[in-house]
């Protein structure tokens, strides 16, 4: 498989930003994930050859960070924070609610392929709006079960404006 020219260009740009090629692995992987949706071995090999590092180094980085995906994901991605501030403000309830309404456990994808969700992403840095989650890398804060339902419904109807989603749509065309 080959990455699109835009992704390759983005990786080249990232490469130029750092004295060491290793440092560009993170932005390069973002570029790949935004194009492909997840990180395939082929894509990682390609990143490695673009950056002149070994594929194993790329894989090590990609597995260290939980926001890089090694497997295909749903159309939307929901990340729920369960760290201290969110936990104190009811994150457990949000997790229970998501498990019920989406019908699958954290770390998995809904049967209809719409959502992949996870509650093991560590602190999202949105303590001020706890409990918080991200939908397609956009913050949703001060969650209640009702708000969550509304957010999911909006996403299902295609009215969410997540960065990843727009990339996906471009590719789908």
């Amino acid at each position, binding site marked *: 498989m080959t990455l699109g020219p835009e992704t390759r260009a983005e990786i080249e740009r990232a490469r130029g930003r750092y004295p060491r090629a290793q440092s560009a692995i993170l932005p390069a992987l973002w570029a790949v994930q935004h194009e492909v949706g997840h990180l395939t071995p082929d894509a*990682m090999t390609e990143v490695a050859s673009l950056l002149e590092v*070994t*594929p*194993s*180094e790329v*894989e*090590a980085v990609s597995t*260290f960070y939980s926001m890089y995906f090694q497997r295909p994901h749903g159309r939307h991605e929901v990340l729920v924070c369960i760290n201290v501030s969110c936990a104190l403000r009811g994150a457990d309830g949000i997790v229970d609610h998501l498990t019920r309404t989406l019908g699958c456990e954290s770390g998995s994808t809904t049967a209809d392929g719409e959502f992949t969700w996870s509650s093991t992403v560590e602190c999202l840095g949105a303590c001020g709006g706890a409990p918080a989650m991200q939908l397609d890398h956009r913050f949703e804060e001060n969650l209640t079960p009702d708000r969550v339902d509304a957010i999911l419904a909006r996403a299902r109807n295609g009215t969410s404006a997540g960065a990843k989603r727009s990339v996906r749509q471009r590719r789908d065309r």
Partner: protein
Amino acid sequence: MAQKPPTQPDDGHVAVSIDGHETRVPKGTLVLDAAAGLGIHIPIYCAHPKMEPVAVCRMCLVHIERFPKPQPACATVVADGMAVTTDSAEVTKIREGMLEFLLLNHPLDCPVCDRGGECDLQDFTFRYGPSVSRFPITEKVHFNKAVPLSEHIELDQERCILCWRCVRYYDEITGEKEIVLEQRGVQTLVTTFNEQPLRSSFQGNLPEVCPVGALTHRQYRFVSRPWDLQRTAGVCPECSYGCNLNVDSRDFEIRRFASRDNPLVEDMWLCDRGRYSFPKWNSTERVRRPAVRPRAGRARDTAVGEAIAAAANELRAVIDAHSPSAIGVMGSAESTNEELFLLQRLARDVIGTRNIDHQLGSFDGITSEEHALGIAEIEECDALVVLGVEPEEEAPVLTLRLFKAQHKRGRRVHRVARDADPAGVVKAMGATTLTGVIADETNREHAVLVATALARKGAVRRMTVTRGVNGRGAKDLGVLPNVLPGYRAAPPGGKNGREILEAAAAGAIHALLITGPNAALERAGELLDRALQRAESVIVVETRPGKVASAATVLIPGHAIFEKLGTVTNIEGRVQRVRPALPPAAQTPSDTRVLAALAAELGAKGWERSDPMSVNRALREAVPAYAEAGSGGRALWTAERVA
């Protein structure tokens, strides 16, 4: 508190006290090494003598006065007046805590682990660990066990203590970066990209850098406990690089080769070809009994004395009927220096033939200059030129020394074509004061051209990769038609290996004396067949059955390299000792004794002392460079050219 002595002159050393013992060590010394110098043991996992400190395992934490927190001894450089404590209650508690953590998810399967008995986790737990764990054994996080990483290496992900040594080995020593730690936190595991098998030629070093039983040799799986092994210091027999190793045997079989650090040679790293080559030395396919099989007459097994007498008779018959030059002598690059030295004496002084070689091709104009560059000196050259792929294919560990020169010492390594244009090489090199030129022995002539061109820019030293574990010794000791021991010119007219075979096949040489095993000879193929058939007399001292042994008119079992005492010389002239690790398969005297007895049968005087050590003494007297080399040093030659 230890006070800095105010009047101490700066001699590059600093004073440090460890557990109340005072010592002075060079500036830049790590606390870990300063303690070792005092005989104080500090447990380590991530630290490794050949790698840069990373201080990730925290096993070596010690207390240092005036530091608010414990410091890693493996990454802390001593300072003048530093006072270190390793035996306090605080340090004991730290060690217990670290070990309890390391064992948190460890499977505790020492009884079935290949590393049991020589495992740092086991040993340090016994020595420094808590006797009980507060964590229930039923609640461990489990990973995969017995994951084959390649045909050589098995990985147990649960036993890994995440010391990073394997990753750093691939990063700092080979540069191949095949192994990585993936995931993070408690989920961290050792693996390869996309679970691809390892491809490196140096995988066998992994189980040795791993401090625990996570990376193990598949070849050694469930084979032995270390205390049941008998360890003999040896030299790798697979090529002429002469890597030092330990031969670990049990029940008269070699069970593994383990590294034996010689910083001047292999620097503790073996290649897989060498390390995993040992099973062939356990082969029961051996020449066991002396035999006499005259061309006209009945073949029979016999006693060794009788076989030697028969050999002498056959040789004498050829000398009487023709001349000494109707005899060709072939030595072997797998023989010891002592055997080679006796063989060439036997050929030249007793038999009186000039036809002696240990390989097929000629080594015209062989000089000691082509062996001037030492292995460790590679790191001192500001530039290195490697001609073709053969040097590194033949002697793989050379690659690691070149990597070290390049990446640790900042030397330039130019890998060019075998027949690269000398002018082009000079141009590509830029300015250098000392250049190393490394070539294969099949490429000697071209190496001379490159070296000569480079010599106009600065000093040049050459390394020539010889074939066979003792190919270098065979050349030094004149088992060649054109040179005597020490590269002195031999009287002209001697035939090289191929010419000997051709003459035998044509009926001009009537007797062959062959000591084996000789891989070079076997490469002669059909020419060898014809020579063996045609010669009236084929006297063979050989370890393995095969073409040569079957064609013998007199066959005497030889001793294999791990069954005897002697020395072999490596690529850089280092004279290294080999010792018996196995009892000889043949119940005959050592090869030196057989050769001496043959000389005595032929009427030579002064061959009585024929044990390997006496021969070694005689050799040192005859070849001063070998006297200076002693055991473990390099035989260095003054540059005298051979006509």
